């Protein structure tokens, strides 16, 4: 103990060690190898050689920019929808949930007890051509008489929204639940109507939840490939599908690695911009929630 008392700086470092090791072994090292692979040239027949082959990146972006753009549009749309659906729900649970609060929260998390793949396959059944939902939409004229919902953009966005919705609701709930009711009372006492209390007190105080929710939904949604594969058609392919096929079908490891890096870089830039706009403080606040 005397040692630690003399070297106070070392103790926190020791606490960090397991996490740090984990990061190095399972994150930094694989990342390094992926970076190296992305600069290789060759084919699975001749083998791959390291060659500072930067043109893999430019070729990849030229060939697959459509899928990149599509991924971000789908992820953006799903994040927006999740916010629209998730905010009122989180608000209701936090302020009106009463004794049902925990049960309702459990209901939000419950789908997670079933694997991701099975949940998405369930949507395949919900949206299949002869399902009650699709017949109903056909009667309303929203879907053409012989039209289908599966294998369309709507199906993919719906699937992504459904799958990532809890990632939006939980941080929103955490932020809303922390708001001191006396703040709202004070707002009302100061002649704020319900609307201005919401926009000037509740909403700003819940921003950390919004920021975290958007990040937690958008990032995995942009890299998703399961929804596009199961609920989409070739016209809905996302960048995740391309990476998967480059790795497993074509065995074109350099392109797959380059695409992964570009996806990561673009997301990092977007997160940085988002953090700048939304304020790092609220971001950090949300993380400690």
């Amino acid at each position, binding site marked *: 103990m005397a040692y630690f008392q003399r070297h106070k700086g070392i103790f926190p470092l020791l606490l960090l060690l397991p996490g740090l090791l984990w990061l190095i072994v399972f994150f930094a090292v694989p990342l390094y190898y992926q970076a190296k692979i992305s600069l290789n040239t060759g*084919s*699975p027949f001749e083998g791959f050689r390291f060659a500072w082959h930067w043109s893999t990146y430019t070729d990849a972006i030229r060939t697959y920019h459509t899928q990149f753009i599509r991924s971000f549009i789908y992820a953006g749309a799903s994040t927006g929808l999740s916010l629209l659906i998730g905010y009122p729900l989180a608000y209701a649970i936090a302020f009106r949930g009463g004794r049902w609060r925990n049960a309702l929260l459990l209901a939000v998390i419950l789908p997670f007890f079933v694997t991701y793949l099975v949940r998405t396959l369930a949507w395949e059944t919900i949206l299949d051509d002869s399902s009650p939902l699709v017949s109903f939409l056909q009667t309303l004229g929203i879907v053409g008489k*012989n039209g*289908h919902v599966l294998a369309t953009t709507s199906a993919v966005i719906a699937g992504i929204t459904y799958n990532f919705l809890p990632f939006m609701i939980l941080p929103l709930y955490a932020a809303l639940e922390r708001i001191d009711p006396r703040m709202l009372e004070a707002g009302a006492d100061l002649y704020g109507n319900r609307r201005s209390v919401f926009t000037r007190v509740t909403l700003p105080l819940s921003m950390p939840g919004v920021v975290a929710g958007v990040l937690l939904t958008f990032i995995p949604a942009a890299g998703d490939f399961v929804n596009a594969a199961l609920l*989409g*058609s*070739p016209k809905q392919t996302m960048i995740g599908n391309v990476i998967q096929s480059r790795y497993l079908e*074509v*065995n074109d490891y350099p392109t797959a690695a380059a695409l992964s890096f570009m996806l990561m870089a673009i997301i990092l830039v977007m997160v940085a911009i988002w953090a700048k706009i939304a304020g790092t403080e609220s971001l950090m606040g949300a993380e400690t929630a």
Partner: protein
Amino acid sequence: MSERNIDKLIDELVAAEINRRQLLRRGAAGAMSVSAAAFLAACGGGGNALSGGTKTAAEKTIPKGEVGTQLNFSNWPLYIDVDHGKHPTLEKFTKETGVHVKYTEEINDNNEFFGKVRQQLASGSSGGRDIIVMTDWMAGKMIRLGYIQKLDKSALPNVNANLVDNLKHIDFDPNRDFTVPWQSGQTGLIVRKDKVGDVTSVNEVFNPKWKGKVTLLTEMRDSVGLTMLGMGKDPTTGSVDDMMAAVNKMNDNVKNGQIRRFTGNDYLKDLPKGDTWIAYGWSGDAVQLQADNKNIEFIHPDEGFMLWTDNMMVPVGAPHAYTAEVFMNWIYQPQVEAPIEDYVNYVPPVKGTKEALLKIDPEVAKNPLIFPDAATLAKGHAFKTLSPADEDKLNNAFQALIGA
């Protein structure tokens, strides 16, 4: 020496229960040369060089040895008879020979499996596998790369006698020196008769009446081959330009919404549900679909259909190469093949299977999809073996077509 090779060595030592004397004896018999070469290559750190030392190992035929106690067999899912979670055929083999078969259903896709084992095979290790089953074109590719051991024909008398005539010679392995067929299959149209009526042309998949109710296959050679036949080209002799033309035709039909998507055997659920009315599909699946739904039918299109074979092969570095030959030879008996056929419903490559099956399940034995007549078979086409450059070009175009 990489961790993988240590694992492999441990596997070999434990699974095969090799003691030191056996190890030495096998070394003397020359069988060790393969794994010894791999061992040295692996220690040299050459993981990425794909050609090289293994090629010479592959050119040597498998020496005769003693039948081991274990055989590691990697196959596709649902590709052998199953009864209450067990495989009666494999148990019969164990009873007759004392060889325990470790059966792994780990092959779901030719390319995916290739990606998984490529590095191991390139360094001369089979990852403990003794038999793998690959479709024609992938078998050809692996042989070309020197990943496959040459079989000893004198150890395979049943195969020599009972292999059906139309499979005796094939362009990627003219004398069947490296491959023994496991099952053959036909790719044609599978349709919902109640929705599309009687159709006979492969071009029906492009009929606007079925817009959005059409699926094709993610297996490139099947989709490109059938589409080529519809365009009046022969996939066995056609040029790469003809193949690219077929890809372009499918691409137009993806763009306009005619083709709903490309599937593996997902059509197994899409056809009964009615999401798909007309699909490129495989005969063995059709047999099983028809049994459940009388409205589903497999069609041999007027323009022809695709024929393919999945082949058993012994990869380099296989720990029980001779035992693998014993197994292949044992399978090539009609009474052994019949129960497998009764379950998998593809086309058996073993002569006399029909007669053997008539005794145990006459209904299946009379199914023309499992035992097609000569007139039908004459309309079948094999997909040509592509040069690596052509394959790359076509594969890239096709992957872009199916959306990746």
